[in-house]
């Protein structure tokens, strides 16, 4: 079963919840960090036996000897990633390329071929019994979804996969969540938390994936999230009160379940319940 941990707003505790769930569950369990722009799960998991590989995607390369500057490639490209300067040269903007191969297919002289361009890394390791996989987008690269897709190719067929999603409700979050069986939305009981939670709820409803809410730092703000959950009939899976000790442990990259072992059972029960309902 694939369970994503997501939220509209950043900094609500997605990573904390993901890593502590993964470490609380018995093997086989894997944790995928799909926040490839700012991956943080490995800070808490401290995986060992690291294997790193480069991830590339297809971008066009033009053979100017074959090109007659007809402009067909520039016309078909919806992403302004290739453009022909009349009778002069062809310019490519690789960071804008979505890899659709339209230019390769449309060129009447077979002057364009797809070549691989490295844009990120895939990192695999193991922390205790948890298989840890994360992607790291190279700095300066704009597009994370292809790397997220690559990280998700590592999903097992059996066992449990916990997926730490990037914040927001646009392409990176959708790319992460759309292939999962259940989404845990992490929020905090504040106006910002509620506003962004509602956006995330709209997104998972659009994708027709079952979901529930974890309210982190449940005592810092007001009742708005609890009331919203009740009105909208969304299950509240767990409430975790604010604690300065948890915050300090987080700041040092320590696991919540190591500091408060009683939490382990709560995380296990939450996942058992989800599996029973949806699995």
């Amino acid at each position, binding site marked *: 079963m694939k369970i994503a941990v997501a939220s*509209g707003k950043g900094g609500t505790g997605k990573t904390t919840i993901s890593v502590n769930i993964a470490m609380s569950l018995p093997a086989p369990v894997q944790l995928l960090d799909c926040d490839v722009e700012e991956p943080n799960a490995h800070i808490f998991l401290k995986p060992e036996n690291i294997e790193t590989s480069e991830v590339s995607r297809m971008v066009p390369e033009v053979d100017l000897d074959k090109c007659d500057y007809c402009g067909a490639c520039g016309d078909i490209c919806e992403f302004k990633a290739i453009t022909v300067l009349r009778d002069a040269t062809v310019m490519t903007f690789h960071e804008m390329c979505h*890899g659709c191969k339209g230019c390769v297919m449309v060129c009447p002289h077979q002057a364009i071929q797809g070549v691989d361009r490295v844009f990120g890394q895939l990192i695999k390791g193991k922390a205790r019994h948890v298989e840890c996989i994360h992607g790291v987008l190279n700095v300066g690269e704009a597009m994370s979804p292809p790397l997220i897709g690559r990280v998700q190719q590592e999903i097992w067929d059996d066992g449990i996969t916990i997926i730490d999603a990037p914040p927001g409700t646009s392409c990176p979050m959708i790319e992460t969540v759309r292939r999962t069986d259940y989404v845990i939305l992490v929020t905090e009981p504040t106006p910002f938390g509620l506003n962004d939670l509602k956006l995330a709820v709209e997104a998972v409803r659009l994708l027709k994936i079952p979901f529930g809410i974890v309210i982190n730092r449940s005592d810092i703000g007001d009742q708005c999230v609890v009331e919203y959950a009740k009105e909208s009939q969304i299950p509240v899976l767990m409430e975790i009160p604010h604690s300065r000790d948890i915050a*300090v442990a987080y700041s040092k990259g320590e696991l919540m379940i190591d500091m408060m072992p009683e939490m382990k059972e709560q995380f296990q029960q939450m996942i058992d319940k989800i599996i029973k309902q949806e699995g």
Partner: protein
Amino acid sequence: MKELTIISGKGGTGKTSIVGSFASLAKNFVLADTDVDAADLHLIIPPEIKQGNDFMGGHKAIIDPDRCTQCGDCLERCQYDAIENFTIDSIACEGCGVCVHFCPSDAIDFPQRKCGEWFISNTSYGPMVHARLGIAEENSGLLVSTVRKAARDLAEQEKKDLVIADGPPGIGCPVIASITGATAILIVTEPTLSGLHDLKRVAELANFLKVPGMLCINKYDLNPDMSDQLRTTAIDYQLTAVGKVPYDPSVTRAMVSGKSPIDYSDGPASQAIRKVWENVSRFLDAR
């Protein structure tokens, strides 16, 4: 006219509360919310919308079953596995138009879609440009660029000399669109290992794009050792340290009552943010 963008790398470090406070302290400026994916600034600075505009983003392919002969050409060409049983999954479709171009029966339509909205509003602090990207929509970078341009045009028209922009988290496309060509950025971070890790990546991006940067440490007293490490990192990436803000529960209370920390109380966080703003203004004046 100058443009200051506030970003953080890691989400939830307190960007928006700080931008809201700056709005109380700055003079003669236009506000912009370039976190178009999860905009929150309007929750502490209520806008009165003067003008709403549709944001037309990319196209999506739609197969017309009446014209489709099920030849399978599109299936072979699609790089995104977006076509199943001769219907296109609008979520998986990237809007590249390759299937549309090559369809031998001309059976695929390719309408441009409204991907969101952007607004010009009045607030009690002055004009604000903000936006809302549709759920699950693409092209957030283009919408960010649209908001920035509208904010700069507005500043020019109304003779304002500063744009203050609340930026998105991360280092990808919307962040690149938010900070490229800005006068300066302020990175708001927190003293945690995650904050440090994310700061390095966003600072590297700022260096790569040659945007001058400042650093503010929020909740610095949560882990003073880590705060020291953040300051060392700031030096490594040529970021100017402009101050630190202590953990102060009144920041959350301010948010709950729909106000910025500065407008809510004169507690320790508010006092520290005033000092940060003095340093930020000085930094901007020198540019």
